[in-house]
């Protein structure tokens, strides 16, 4: 039964979006980086007067450690030309801006704000790999995971090993996720890595946490993303091509992976997806384009199952089928995903929204999925202690 009986009624409408180039941005602080994403969103929507219209900002930002800088909400608002606006940082590890999006929806639906900006930012590449490994691990359980040397790739590797054991999923099938997403990123001028790779290249790359090699892991990247949300009744005032958010789900799970019932799926994803699908009154089979949380290759396979794109245990067969490639039945991670577009953790959730916004407004150029009207984003925090799932529809 439809959650809150919304049956696909728009919760909020996206009237604009912006994205910084993802990659290495030497000498730029997070707040500076965010201004590039905001600028694109403002330029794309000339009818928006930011200082007059924007009533609140929710900014996903995961780590103070990178720049020794917390309190990011206000700093980012100032540098985006919005000094004075109600600005709040949201933190939910790698789902920080997925959670920012939820907060923005809460703000608009409540009636407290007609127009809000949600977004995210992370500046990571100026730190060493071991420092970043440590900062990312902070999103896992300290006393039982970090304390025993379990890293972030390690947590997803524990899930991948369990899936391989239960369903016969292979390292080659995981590698195919990387190959697909690198191909898509090669068509995305804003992606961090715009080059094709092969299964062999993945298999031969340096081991990170067995069975994950370097090319099974997402990139350490700098980047920022920005999305402008408006009350649906006001969307036409700002744009001829609004994208409506018609389903929104978020759920939590134990912070420690070891306490979960399943090691091969994320209950938080399944719960968030059910909420979003019910709210939008759509089924997984109706989704035409999706951006899912592929922080590691296995994570994308797990998402196929948790989001209902295929039956449990058959995600390896789904990647083999090519149906999730561009031109397939359900293209996934057309942007290149976290894997190749890059994973500036706090920026990731709303960067996924940016890609779906482009797809549903026909602006995805070489990556365009023909006639896409219904899209999905899926953002995971930590090893799955947070997940958000959103559904999008365009009227055009």
């Amino acid at each position: 039964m439809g959650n809150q009986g919304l049956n696909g009624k728009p919760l909020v409408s996206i009237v604009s979006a912006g994205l910084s180039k993802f990659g290495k941005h030497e000498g730029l602080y997070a707040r500076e980086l965010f201004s590039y994403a905001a600028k694109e969103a403002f330029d794309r929507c000339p009818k928006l007067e930011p200082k007059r219209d924007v009533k609140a900002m929710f900014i996903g930002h995961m780590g103070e450690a990178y720049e020794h800088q917390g309190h990011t909400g206000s700093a980012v608002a100032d540098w985006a030309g919005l000094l004075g606006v109600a600005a709040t940082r949201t933190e939910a590890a790698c789902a920080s801006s997925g959670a920012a999006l939820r907060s923005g929806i809460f703000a608009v639906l409540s009636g407290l704000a007609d127009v809000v900006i949600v977004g995210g930012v992370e500046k990571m590449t100026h730190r060493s790999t071991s420092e970043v490994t440590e900062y990312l691990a902070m999103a896992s359980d300290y006393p039982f995971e970090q304390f025993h040397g379990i890293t972030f790739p390690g947590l997803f590797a524990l899930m991948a090993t369990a899936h391989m054991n239960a369903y016969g999923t292979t390292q080659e099938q995981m590698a195919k996720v990387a190959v697909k997403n690198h191909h898509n990123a090669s068509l995305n001028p804003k992606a961090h890595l715009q080059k094709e790779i092969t299964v062999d290249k993945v298999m031969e790359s340096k081991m990170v946490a067995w069975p994950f090699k370097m090319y099974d892991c997402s990139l350490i990247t700098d980047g920022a993303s920005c999305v402008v949300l408006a009350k649906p009744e006001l969307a036409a005032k700002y744009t001829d091509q609004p994208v409506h958010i018609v389903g929104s789900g978020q759920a939590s799970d134990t912070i420690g992976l070891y306490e979960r019932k399943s090691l091969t799926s994320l209950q938080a994803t399944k719960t968030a997806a059910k909420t979003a699908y019910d709210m939008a009154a759509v089924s997984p089979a109706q989704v035409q384009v999706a951006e899912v949380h592929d922080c590691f290759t296995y994570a994308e396979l797990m998402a196929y199952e948790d989001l209902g794109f295929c039956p449990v245990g058959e995600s390896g067969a789904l990647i083999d089928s090519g149906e999730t490639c561009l031109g397939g039945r359900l293209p996934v991670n057309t942007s290149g995903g976290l894997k190749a577009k890059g994973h500036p953790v706090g920026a990731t959730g709303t960067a996924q929204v940016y890609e779906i916004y482009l797809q549903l407004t026909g602006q995805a150029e070489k990556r365009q999925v023909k006639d896409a009207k219904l899209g999905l984003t899926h953002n995971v925090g930590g090893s799955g202690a947070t997940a958000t799932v959103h559904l999008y529809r365009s009227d055009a």
Partner: protein
Amino acid sequence: MSTQVPFTIEQFYKFLAEGKLMAAKCQKCGKIHLPPRPMCDNCYGQDFVWMEVSGKGKLLTYTTIHVAPQQFQSLVPYTVGIVELENGLKLPGMISGIPPEAVKIGMALKVEFKACDVGQTWPQWQRYCFKLT
């Protein structure tokens, strides 16, 4: 066991230093907690009793870590896993004394105290790891 002893993660590690693997059983609903908690997430009760659990179990999953945080770099590559103990309780940790390629899901392991030590300023807890039974 005295009920004055707090039902906390800190106390779990204090027991470990004494060579005991302890879980907390909720007196109201019977749920066994490992790690222990000050409040039962099932029934919100706060009346617990300590119970010693067997350190023997079977391996549910594992990975071998090659890229590690600074503190663990001297141990690379090292294998970590999640072990299912009796009562369905689960505990993650390092697996030591077994070559990575010999580690198999389902293998019988047991907790060993005072092992897998690395330098650490906080918290100064007793570590454990898993070895072959």
